């Protein structure tokens, strides 16, 4: 499955401009890229959150495809209903327009996915609905004012776990939701970012093609919540992959594949340099907090090592020999 950029850019934009996303928001960019691949025969569900709020202020909508929002914690259940409705109406011969296949996409932020929506997501994945769940992970509750979520990385400043005189931001590492989704043994799980457009488009295409549920975790740097220059959102995505903070990988039927491996001898960016560009980590660079920075690096290294091992462990026997 090779994504053709020339073809992709000629496709109709199904998320119209004029929505209310912040200047420099990388989330709206994710939605546009997803929709370029998904096309018109797609029904989208949104969990309450930034992307829902900015795209559907009544009486306007940015969505040129059918779209439904019902609540914060239940987009997976809502889309379960829509997808089941499709199968049932097809079986009864009652579809309003004849289609052999439609795409069902549920979209939630990390709050609606890692936290309050985890149960509904788990249920939908276990039941095997033919849907793609896309988490736009901006690592905190941005829509309600940058509160910490279980996706917030260690040390990050948020409004509910702020850096202060005695505390230095979030005290826990982020939850590994992608691994939790892999544990559901669904056909397709992947991580990507909107900077890596070919990677993202290919993964959306694969996710839509599988028979059953698929999950994509997409890093969404937030200019407001992470405190960086709105112009550099895509640069932040690029570097997050280069320094292993957010590896690009996919798990197809249980087999891990890392889509990008930085050169060990000459890594393009260092984690600390990447963090320095973001106000949410500012306090970690104050004298006395060196150990916390080391902890951040250790976590990223440890997760990367784990990922490398998983790739080897789940590889086909032939490729194991060549490792």
């Amino acid at each position, binding site marked *: 499955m090779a994504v053709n950029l020339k073809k992709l850019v000629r496709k109709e934009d199904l998320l119209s401009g004029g929505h209310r996303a912040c200047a420099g928001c990388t989330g709206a960019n994710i939605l546009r890229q997803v929709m370029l691949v998904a096309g*018109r*025969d*797609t*029904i989208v*569900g949104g969990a309450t959150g930034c992307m*829902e*709020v900015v795209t*559907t*202020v*009544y*009486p306007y*909508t940015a*969505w*040129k*495809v*059918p*779209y*439904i*929002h*019902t*609540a914060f*914690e*239940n987009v997976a*259940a*809502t*889309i*379960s*209903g*829509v*997808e*089941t*409705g*499709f*199968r*049932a*109406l097809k*079986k*009864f011969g*009652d*579809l*309003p*327009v004849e*289609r052999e296949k*439609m795409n069902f996409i549920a979209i939630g932020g990390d709050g609606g996915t890692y936290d309050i929506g985890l*149960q*509904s997501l*788990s*249920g939908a994945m*276990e*039941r095997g609905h033919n849907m793609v769940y896309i988490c736009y992970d901006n690592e905190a509750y941005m829509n309600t004012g940058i509160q910490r979520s279980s996706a917030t990385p260690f040390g990050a400043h948020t409004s509910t776990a702020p850096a202060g005189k005695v505390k230095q931001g979030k005290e826990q590492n982020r939850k590994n939701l992608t691994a939790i989704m892999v544990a559901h043994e669904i056909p397709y799980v992947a991580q990507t970012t909107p900077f890596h457009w070919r990677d993202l488009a290919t993964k959306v295409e694969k996710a839509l093609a599988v028979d059953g549920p698929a999950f994509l975790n997409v890093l969404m740097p937030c200019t407001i919540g992470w405190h960086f220059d709105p112009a550099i959102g895509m640069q932040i995505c690029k570097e997050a992959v280069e320094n292993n903070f957010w590896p690009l990988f996919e798990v197809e039927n249980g087999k891990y594949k890392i889509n990008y491996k930085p050169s060990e001898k000459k890594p393009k960016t260092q984690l600390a340099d990447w963090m320095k560009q973001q106000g949410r980590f500012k306090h970690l660079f104050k004298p006395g907090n060196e150990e916390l920075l080391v902890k951040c690096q250790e976590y990223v290294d440890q997760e990367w090592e784990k990922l490398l091992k998983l790739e080897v462990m789940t590889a086909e026997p032939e490729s194991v020999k060549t490792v």
Partner: protein
Amino acid sequence: MAQNLVALAGNEAVAYAFKQARPHVGSAFPITPQTEMMHKFAEFVANGEVDTEMILVESEHSAMSAAIGSAAAGARTFTATSSAGFALMWEMVYVAASLRLPINMALVNRALSGNINIHCDHSDSMGGRDSGWIQVFCENAQESYDTALMNFRISEHMDVRLPAMTNYDGFIISHTEDALYLLDDDTAYDFIGPYQAKYALLDVENPITVGPLDLTDYYFEHKWSQMEAQKRVFPVAREVMSEFGELTGRSYDFFEEYRLDDADLVMVVLGSSAGTTKDVIDEYRDKGVKVGLLKLRLFRPFPVAEIVKVLAGRKAIAVLDRSASFGGFGGPVFTEIRSALYRQEQTPIHNWIYGLGGRDYDLKQVAEVIEKLQQIAAGEELQEVNLLGIRL
């Protein structure tokens, strides 16, 4: 027309009605005493008696969320729950009505926790009285079956497009074998008719956005449209009930009047308690006491004009509530009835809260209320809000 006389528990009877509606989708999560309704329906599916696609969700919150998704897709959709399950789906109960989705739900009435209790009272459904759903309460299995069928017609009517709850008392109706008449499948389905959604998400050629952010400039008007839709339930329900009466010989109205014509004293109850009340009313009628019953069926929308017409000018009224409003002035049915009659000549209206957590409502309790009503009618000043059948 020919109807089959059968013996079924209330849960089975309602499962039968749901099957006969041939819903596209049903969602369900287990909770006592609703469970057997879903067991029965699952059997129909497993035996190919109905083609419904089931979504067996991981919680009631998801049961209602999935029902909303399915109904918004354009599918005839049902679900069922009780008590804490209804409480868990509460957020989505409001969304279902706000999105004007005619989901049909069996609410098998059970006390809310805590402490946990599996038996009947109406505290669950009363939590949903302001949610925008149609709420009908039933006295027995026959009425539950008939109501479930009629509710599809009423809720899906183009003038209405609101979700509907068929309320029947946990265990007392749900688990009690009762004699009832069933329509044959085709007759029942023909009565309900096929479902045609006005707007469907699956109509990808005419994309719609459902559930947008709705702020100060439009939200109020959308709430108004829900209020108006509730008002339109009255003529539609009348029409459906009258057609059902012609079809089956069983007539229904917003409420049932039992020995009410010349009654000075009136009791108002919901649900299965009507049967017990009727028995004791018969006894008192034999003694020459002019007492009657108003069994309220349609609680939402509340048929205020009709209730005022029937209750105005009585000597004393007892409203029985099978749920408490802690810290409030009496139970929810009481405050509603009393408020409805405010501008009428001063009829004393008293409240008895009874049967919480399935506490038995027995003949003695009905007699106690009727005795008190007689004293009130004779001019005695008695306490306005009372507890019935409590052990203190």
